C-alpha cells in the first residue's frame, strides 16, 4: 500500500467557508482525508457535511456516537453529513480529529465512505471528546473528482485538511 499526498489546505486568518479539493486524480484505489478542524459556529460541536462532485444530494449514512457513558446512533436521516467537528463554544485551541476514507472512488459503482472523529468539547465536560463513526453511501456511479467539506459558519483559523491517494 502506498499513500500519496495530493494537497493540504491550511485555513488562515479570517477562516474559510469551505474546504475543497478539486481535480482529484483517478489513478488511486481509495481516498483518505485527515482533518483537524474547528467550526466557527458558536456551539459545542457542529456537523461536517460533504459535497461530492459539487452536489450535496444522493448521500446518506449510519452513525454511531460515544457520548459520556452512552453509545447511541441512527441509521439514515443524516443527508450529506459525514461527521461532527469541534466548534467555537469550546475552549480556544480545541480541534477535532477526523479520518475519512472514500473507497473505490474512481470506480463505476456507488461510492462508500466512512469517518471516525474525536471531538473534544469544553462545555459537555472539560476536554472530554465525543467519538463519532459514520458509514455512508453516495448512490451515484460517477467517479469522484471533487470533494467539498462544509460546516455551519465555516472553519476557523488553524484548521488543516490533507487529502491522500491510497494505491
Amino acid at each position, binding site marked *: 500500500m502506498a*499513500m500519496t499526498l495530493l494537497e*493540504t489546505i491550511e485555513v488562515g486568518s479570517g477562516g474559510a467557508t469551505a474546504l475543497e479539493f478539486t481535480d482529484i486524480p483517478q489513478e488511486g484505489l481509495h481516498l483518505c482525508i485527515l*482533518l483537524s478542524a474547528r467550526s466557527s459556529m458558536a456551539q459545542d460541536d457542529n456537523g461536517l457535511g460533504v459535497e461530492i462532485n459539487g452536489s450535496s444530494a444522493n448521500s446518506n449514512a449510519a452513525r454511531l456516537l460515544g457520548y459520556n*457513558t452512552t453509545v447511541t446512533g441512527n441509521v439514515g436521516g443524516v443527508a450529506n453529513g459525514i461527521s461532527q467537528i469541534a466548534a467555537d463554544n469550546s475552549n480556544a485551541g480545541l480541534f477535532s480529529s477526523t479520518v475519512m476514507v472514500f473507497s473505490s472512488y474512481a470506480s463505476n459503482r456507488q461510492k462508500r465512505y466512512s469517518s471516525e472523529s*474525536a471531538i473534544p468539547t469544553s462545555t459537555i465536560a472539560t476536554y472530554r471528546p465525543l467519538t463519532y463513526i459514520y458509514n455512508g453511501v453516495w448512490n451515484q456511479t460517477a467517479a469522484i473528482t471533487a470533494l467539498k467539506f462544509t460546516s455551519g459558519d465555516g472553519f476557523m483559523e488553524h484548521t488543516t485538511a490533507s487529502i491522500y491517494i491510497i494505491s
Partner: protein
Amino acid sequence: MATPTYDLLESVTLETAASSVTFSSIDGSYGDLVIVADWGFDGEGDLDIRLNSDTSNHSFVTMANTTSGRASATGENGNYIPASYHASADSGTYPSAIINFLDYSATDKNKSVLVRSGNLASGIEAMSGTYASTSAVTTIMLFSSPNMIIGSTFNLYGIAKESA
C-alpha cells in the same frame, strides 16, 4: 505535486516482556502520526497511551462491543488515553490497534487522538481522546499492566502533510 508519504519512523518488537514501550524525540516535521500495535499480555490487561510523560490532561470516551455486551466509559484529566479498555486481552490473545495523532506537532491547538482496537477473544472498540496541551507531542508511551509479552510489535509512522 503528489508526494509519497507514510514513513516508518520506528519499529519495536519486544525481545523480553515489558510494561511499556516509548517513542521519544519524535521528528516534528510530519503532519500526523500513526501507531500500529500488535501485542499480547501475561494475563488479562489493558494498554494505555501517555503523551509527553504528562501525568494529567488526558481525557477520553470509549465505546465497545464486547463479549459482555456494549459498553462505554469516560475519563477526564487523567494520565492516560486507553488503547484498549473494554476489550481487554486475555493471555494468549493478540489484540491490535491503530492509533491516529493528527497535527501532533502543532503548538496552536490541543491534541486529539483516535483509536480502533480489539481482538477476537473479547471484542472491538473505538475511542477518542484529548490531550489538553498545546505543546508538540515529542514522546508517546504505551504502557500496560501486566507486562506485554515477547513478540509484541509497535510501529510508528509519520504522514507528510507538506509537499516535498
